[in-house]
């Protein structure tokens, strides 16, 4: 997949301060259209903070975020989401007491129109809208491979199915950028390998640009086209997996100073 067509998501000089602490320090970053990129870094590097700036949950102290060329810094979270940027959560955050189908349908909220009156009267238009939404939800559940648990409570699903449901729910926003926050957390190597295939397929089928935050290096190296490395709030490297693997600053950040000296 070529990386043409400019950036789907671009962050310019993002800086986030919490009181005196600088969590993210002047980081620039972009997701080229139709690519799969990763954001990695040791614990406390500011990955999650940066991620939350991208999705609009945190306001950056300075800097700006552009979605398909349009500035979205400071926009409400739900507007950013319904505008086409979807995410999943590191610690799964499904709507536990709703069915899998309803979970997916919640994400279609902004695409649907029915109000109080048309819902109570169950107008023809409202019924049609619901039917279309149900079918789309089923399509997505089938796509992620859990089409058989449509009416199961989300909290009764197995861990793997919950992860899949999160992806299905995110896809219901019809996103053009998909942000996955540690999607392989808690998966065994086999499941992770399947997941790598799935991410590629997702990009090719749905034409979304994907950002991964990941701890699992083998997943990152296999799936990413480009990798950005954060350490202590700063961007210390950016490049292809091969470049990152051999970058001395990255090795230092992960293994410590003595480690890199020892390898000399």
């Amino acid at each position, binding site marked *: 997949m070529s990386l043409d067509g400019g950036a789907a998501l671009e962050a310019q000089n993002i800086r986030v301060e919490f009181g005196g602490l600088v969590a993210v320090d002047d980081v620039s970053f972009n997701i080229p259209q139709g690519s799969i990129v990763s954001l990695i870094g040791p614990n406390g590097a500011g990955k999650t903070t940066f991620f939350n700036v991208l*999705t609009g949950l945190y306001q950056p102290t300075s800097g700006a975020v552009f979605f398909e060329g349009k500035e979205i810094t400071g926009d409400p979270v739900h507007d950013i989401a319904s505008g086409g940027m979807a995410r999943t959560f590191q610690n799964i955050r499904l*709507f536990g007491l709703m069915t899998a189908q309803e979970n997916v349908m919640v994400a279609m*909220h902004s695409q649907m129109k029915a109000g109080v009156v048309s819902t109570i009267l169950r107008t023809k238009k*409202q019924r049609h809208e619901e039917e279309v939404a149900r079918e789309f939800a089923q399509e997505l559940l089938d796509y992620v491979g859990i089409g058989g648990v449509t009416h199961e409570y989300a909290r009764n699903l197995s861990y793997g199915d919950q992860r899949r449901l999160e992806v299905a729910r995110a896809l219901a926003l019809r996103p053009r950028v998909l942000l996955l926050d540690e999607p392989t957390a808690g998966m065994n190597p086999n499941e992770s390998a399947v997941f790598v295939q799935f991410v590629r397929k997702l990009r090719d089928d749905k034409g979304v640009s994907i950002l991964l935050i990941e701890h699992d290096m083998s997943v990152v190296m296999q799936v990413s086209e480009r990798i950005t490395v954060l350490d202590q709030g700063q961007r210390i490297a950016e490049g292809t997996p091969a470049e990152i693997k051999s970058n001395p600053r990255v090795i230092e950040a992960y293994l410590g100073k003595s480690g890199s000296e020892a390898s000399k």
Partner: protein
Amino acid sequence: MSNTSVAAHTAVTNNRKWAIGYVSVVATIFVLNKFLLTYLNSDVQKFFNSWFSLSSLAEIMIWILMALGLNIIVGYAGLLDLGYVAFWALGGYVAGWLMSPFFSSLQFNFFGHARKGFEFGIHFHVLIVLILGGCFTAIWGVIIGGPTLRLKSDYLALVTLGFGEIIPQFMLNGSNIAGHNLTNGAQGIGGLDEINLFGYVIGTFAMPEKFLMVSILAGGMIFFSIRLRDGRLGRAWLAIREDELAASMMGVPLWRTKFSSYSIGAVSGGVGGVAFAILVGGVYADRFNFVISIIILSMVVLGGMGNVWGVVVGATVLSWINSIGLVQVGDLINNTFGTHVNFPSYQFLIFGLLLVLMMLFRREGFLPEARMRMVMQDEKGDVDKKVSDETKIASN
């Protein structure tokens, strides 16, 4: 796709069963009290009048109406409202102002039905008063909910707690607002108009008809609640209840969605308030206190938060215990064992105990979302079938 339609069908038939049950109970009570009871022997009459007196049953319907209104706020959207009684009071006073001889210096009649000799005051048609009552509390819902719903939901609990105290206090002391008597203080506003529904007059003491009227209102509220739950808004409310952050990240606008829930709850509270005022023929400030808010909240929690039929059962049971059960069962126990315990005075001890026991042993309420349970059993059946199909194929 077949899964979906089967489940939807199950949910519909389940709701239909309950709805048929509700309608038959209401119809039975109405017919019994209106036509049959006078022909039955005096013991039977006495039994019904003491254990299931019609005025108490009508009041239960009001409680159902209120509990379902609060259910939209607390049960659906998960917003804690501790002052729901304020809407009840406001709705009640709208009825007091708009369909009684209270403002005696005025004389205004809009399809109203003033009693003979009491043509002064303001007299609106009862249906208009119901609508205006809902509109009035909607305005208050906007005033209270508008700013507070932007904050964390804990603040809503605090603000509504204050609101629920202020409004009844205002009504209690509102007999001299800059020289105007607005609420008639502790005496309240009595002598509400008789109801004139397109020529059919329901007198002050025509209990069967009044019961039927509030039952229809409560039935309407049940219908609205179920419809709203199954639609786009209902899903958004539940999503906010389950996980606010995730909901907003899925494109659900938090403030607007919470606000719609709070306003609809406020409107139902106002309509309930009007209905109650009509039922008792007046509106009295000392009835509206903090305890009422808590009792309504208990009904929602005990019934099974968010489940419409559960809340109906919760409201019925609690208000029956409250108005009749404690007195009657108390008398029964006192008479049988020769004790002299004043059971109604232990009302809150018993209520509290009931709440604690429920929280310990049946946290999901009387009726945990039956709809879901049916759906899940249905799904399980499908899975079993699928498995047996697969083994069949494998053995071939």
